[in-house]
């Protein structure tokens, strides 16, 4: 394939994923998908290799291929053109239960297989012990909601309504689930149609050749970047703040144009929802690898051929049944990013940023009377890079969702926002300064509500690099109606009453250079 065809076919395949992503967001019902774009869409070849992806959320990066692999594994030849499979089981191709993926096999008019299209959406509620399906108290996955192993949701005769009923019936918001699921089917429908059009243009073997060519192309670009990384083995350990601390370690080996990230020295899994399944760990490693090699290379399987990720089953980075996993996706993933960056910094001192806030600061407030459930992740400081200061009050690492405006929040919930500003002095010092964290202070204006926090970096700072100072640790506080302040733990649930305010102070980013 020549240089021109390569560029044309790259746009064509990316266009399929684009259009799927657009269709998904257009048709989705819930704000989480429509506004925060907590969703992804991708195209795969007949072997399940990802050939294009519409990127919104880094944590979906490496985990979409796992979903397709699980669907192929479960159904084999029965996953024929026209058949669609749904799944969310973290132990069979998923990440955490709210992320529901639908995989569709695609064939041409004569039934010859062309590949797969798949899309993933974060569903706001899939049952479990708490609204939002991320209960802080979970000690096994059964408490986190409905587990869907790969199941057949559509065949040549159309959707299986009974499967939609089953998923909807297990959610606190069943009509929203139906709307979002329908949007997911619509997205796969658009993707299948466009893939068939490409097959008409290039012929089935031409299309397969084109898919292979774009992956080879990304692989070449990434390897060109990897060759510039000095060979060697680089190790780094950081700690997750569960009990007395849970270590995550990596031994990173760079050899020519290949990198191996071995995380098998990491600690055993825990009876709290901070376990990451293998796909989440792979996503986190892919994120760092993409950032440090060629961030503009077309996102497909070729981008990660040069990277091998090793883990040991039963550890915090490769959880085994029945470990709960809801926060593995949103908190542990951030620490894996830090660990990988810490190792790469030894190889690439002029490219790697200091640690960012390293948490998503998950804040949930809700009650049954009045009935409401408010969920937010709060920004913090970005680590400084060797070339500039870190950004302040920004989402980093594995998420990029927007905040809820105070003016929207107070209209929707019995809450009042008193502060949403930078946390001065939280940034790590250095030649380039880290970004400042954020202070968010929210008052309960109804009789009573339950507060849940899932936060990290409350005891151990985001680290600086090259002599730069550490960022400030975060802090959680409740201010009672009478003005007394009480510190809150990094993780947990508490009852609040009218007039109580929760104040979340998020970590600053590390500084770079002394």
């Amino acid at each position, binding site marked *: 394939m020549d*240089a*021109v065809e390569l*560029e044309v076919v790259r746009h064509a395949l990316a266009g399929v994923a684009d259009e799927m992503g657009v269709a998904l967001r257009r*048709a989705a*019902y819930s704000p989480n998908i429509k506004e925060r774009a907590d969703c992804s869409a991708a195209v795969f070849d007949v072997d399940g290799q990802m050939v294009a992806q519409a990127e919104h959320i880094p944590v979906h990066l490496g985990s979409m291929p796992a979903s397709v692999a699980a669907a192929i594994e479960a159904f084999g030849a029965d996953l024929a053109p026209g058949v669609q499979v749904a799944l969310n089981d973290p132990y069979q191709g998923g990440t955490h239960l709210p992320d529901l993926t639908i995989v569709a096999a695609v064939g041409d008019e004569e039934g010859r297989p062309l590949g797969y299209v798949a899309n993933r959406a974060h569903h706001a509620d899939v049952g479990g012990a708490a609204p939002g399906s991320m209960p802080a108290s979970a000690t096994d996955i059964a408490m986190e909601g409905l587990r869907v192993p790969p199941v057949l949701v559509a065949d040549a005769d159309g959707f299986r309504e009974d499967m939609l009923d089953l998923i909807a019936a297990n959610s606190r918001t069943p009509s929203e689930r139906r709307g979002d699921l329908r949007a997911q089917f619509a997205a796969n429908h658009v993707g299948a149609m466009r893939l068939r059009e490409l097959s008409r243009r290039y012929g089935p073997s031409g299309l397969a050749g084109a898919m292979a060519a774009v992956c080879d192309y990304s692989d070449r670009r990434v390897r060109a970047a990897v060759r510039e990384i000095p060979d060697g083995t680089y190790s780094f350990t950081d700690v997750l703040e569960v009990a007395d601390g849970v270590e995550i370690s990596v031994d990173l080996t760079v050899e020519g144009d290949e990198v191996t990230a071995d995380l098998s020295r990491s600690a055993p899994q825990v009876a709290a929802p901070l376990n990451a399944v293998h796909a989440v760990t792979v996503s986190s490693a892919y994120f760092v690898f993409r950032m440090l090699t060629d961030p503009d290379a077309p996102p497909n399987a070729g981008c990660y051929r040069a990277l091998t990720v090793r883990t040991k089953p039963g550890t915090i980075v490769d959880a085994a049944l029945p470990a709960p996993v809801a926060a593995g996706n949103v908190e542990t993933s951030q620490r894996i990013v830090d660990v990988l960056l810490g190792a790469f910094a030894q190889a690439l001192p002029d490219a790697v940023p200091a640690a960012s806030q390293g948490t998503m600061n998950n804040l949930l407030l809700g009650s049954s009377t009045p009935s409401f459930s408010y969920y937010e992740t709060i920004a913090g400081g970005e680590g400084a890079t060797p070339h*500039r200061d870190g950004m302040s009050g920004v989402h*980093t690492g594995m998420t*990029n969702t927007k905040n809820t405006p105070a003016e929207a929040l107070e209209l929707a919930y019995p809450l009042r926002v008193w502060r*949403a*500003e930078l946390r001065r002095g939280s940034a790590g010092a250095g030649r380039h300064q880290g970004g400042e964290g954020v202070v968010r202070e929210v008052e309960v204006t109804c009789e009573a509500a339950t507060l849940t926090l899932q936060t990290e970096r409350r005891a151990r700072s985001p680290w600086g690099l090259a002599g730069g100072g550490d960022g400030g640790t975060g802090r959680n506080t409740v201010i009672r109606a009478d003005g007394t302040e009480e510190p809150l733990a990094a993780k947990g649930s508490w009852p609040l009453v009218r007039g109580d305010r929760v104040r979340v102070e998020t970590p600053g980013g590390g500084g770079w250079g002394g």
Partner: protein
Amino acid sequence: MELVAGVDVGGTFTDVVVLAEHPRAVKVPTTPSDQGEGVVAGLDAGAGAHGDVTAMAHGTTTATNAVLERDIARTVLVTTAGFADLLVIGRQDRPSLYDLRVTRPTPLTQSVVTVDERMGPQGRPLVALTGEEVERVVDAVAALEPESVAVSLLFGYAGDAHERALADELARRLGVPVTRSSALLPEFREYERASTCVLNAAVAPVMRRYLEGLDRRLPDASITVMTSGGGTAGLDFVADAPVHTLLSGPAAGVVAAGAVARSGGFADALAFDMGGTSTDVCLIRDGVPEVATEAEIGGLPFRTPAVGIHTVGAGGGSVGWIDRGGALRVGPRSAGARPGPACYGLGGTEPTVTDAHCALGHLDPARQLGGGLVLDPGPAHRAIAGLPPEAGGAEGILTVARATMARALRRVSMERGVDPSTLVLIPYGGAGPLHASALAAELGCAAVVVPPAPGVLSALGLLLAPSRYEALRTVMRPAEGDLGDVWPALEREARDELGRQRPGAALSTQRVADCRYAGQSHELRLELDEGEEPASRFHAAHERAYGYAMRGEPVVLVTARVVAEAPPACEDLPAGWDQGSAGPERSRRVTIEGVEVEARVLDRAALGVGDRLAGPALVEQSDTTTLLAPSDEATVDERGNLVIRRTNRR
């Protein structure tokens, strides 16, 4: 006698269209330090003498450039205590997921004064604003010696008492422009509202100076200015609310593209404006460009009506290069105006899209370009020969540029659920008509409609745009039952304001409701008949837009709007253009889509209404060349549009 002109100021040229018995178009160089000089020169060239012009519709990039170049007024933001860093935090997202080089834009001002006060969501004070606090705040602002001030308080849209007290005292004491959020944009979402107000405040002094100069130069002409949403507004309004002009230039082009589509008998179209460094595309439905309620400039969001333009970084000056994965890329780097494409002979050595056209014979080397430029194929050939053989030469560059543009055009239509094969393509800008035929074939578009003067379409659009004013208020209540009290005040405001801008003109109004299902976060814009409940219309609109409706769910009226309009200078696309005199037909060896052929070469002036033309052919006019592939057939319709369709003939 009435003498009406549309004047659009672009980066390089100021385009003028004068409505006379035969509409005329002229181009003069833009004068960047004061665009008004070029405007007067253009009117002299187009209308004989600028003093004879009785009405001018104006497209200006004064505000746009001020923001992009940060040539702005020293501005202070006044906001509620606890929210000092609103502009820095924004919506807390980062612009690029993976690329560390890409950062958020620096806010237009770092000077923020916070106020001890707080409105609640219903517009009642939770923390009262005292007289002493007003004094303290005004003193603090004055100490910063601002040239302009923005006042945007939390829930200021719901209750404006605090904002008014502060803004009145600031204006009295400081004597500088004060932008008040409850006047400019009484709509919820504090970051977007504050960002809009600060953008407005930062360009207000610049815009005011420019408009005053223009008014002095043209004292006898009534002047209107194009807004981002595709309507024109009066000078006083624009001086107070210049944020409405940030997309003035592109808006005029798509308004005209809509009129071109309508005149050709087509309802739905894609506007395709290809310039030197970038390409703007926009979906047109029922002859009207899609209008969004939010847009951004240099990464800074603003909420005003704005045409839904999607921009990609590929234009005539975009450079072709081979990346380290071995693919041929075109753009986003551009050769710009200096040195420009290699074929300009100004020292450029890198192969651009324009060089590819030049090398393939699409552009006539003998013809003069604007500014005394003559094309030289020699450097173009040399630049392209500098690429490795697998790059596919000139044809390769065009193929890759086309793939980029096709993806953008697919995207703007798909986002609205429209299949490009049901659309016609309206090419304009210098390079649009060269690419349109092949692009339409790739997208399966029904036809290409090339307007009579594609190089000055934006200037024409200024004359085709209605005067428009939109009054709005965030309402946030169930979209059912009696909403009678919502509309009259908005209707009064809209009629009064537009009446001031266009005294004596016939005014019409339209009610618009932004609605959503309770719990959703995105609104749909609905046009309502008088007395009509938004809810019933909402379900149907949701079904059409998203494929389903939930008739049992409650619907919320988020924002109520009344749009007042007065008729444009020119209701229909003018016909009978003065195209100058035509030279004799000639022919040239050219390569089109990989095939070398002998193409007919005609002047656009040689084509009359009803004429037919089969490709391969090149139709040349002063600033544009239209390319017809061997299997294309074209006709000239009654308005002088060249309508191109691809046949199976080869």
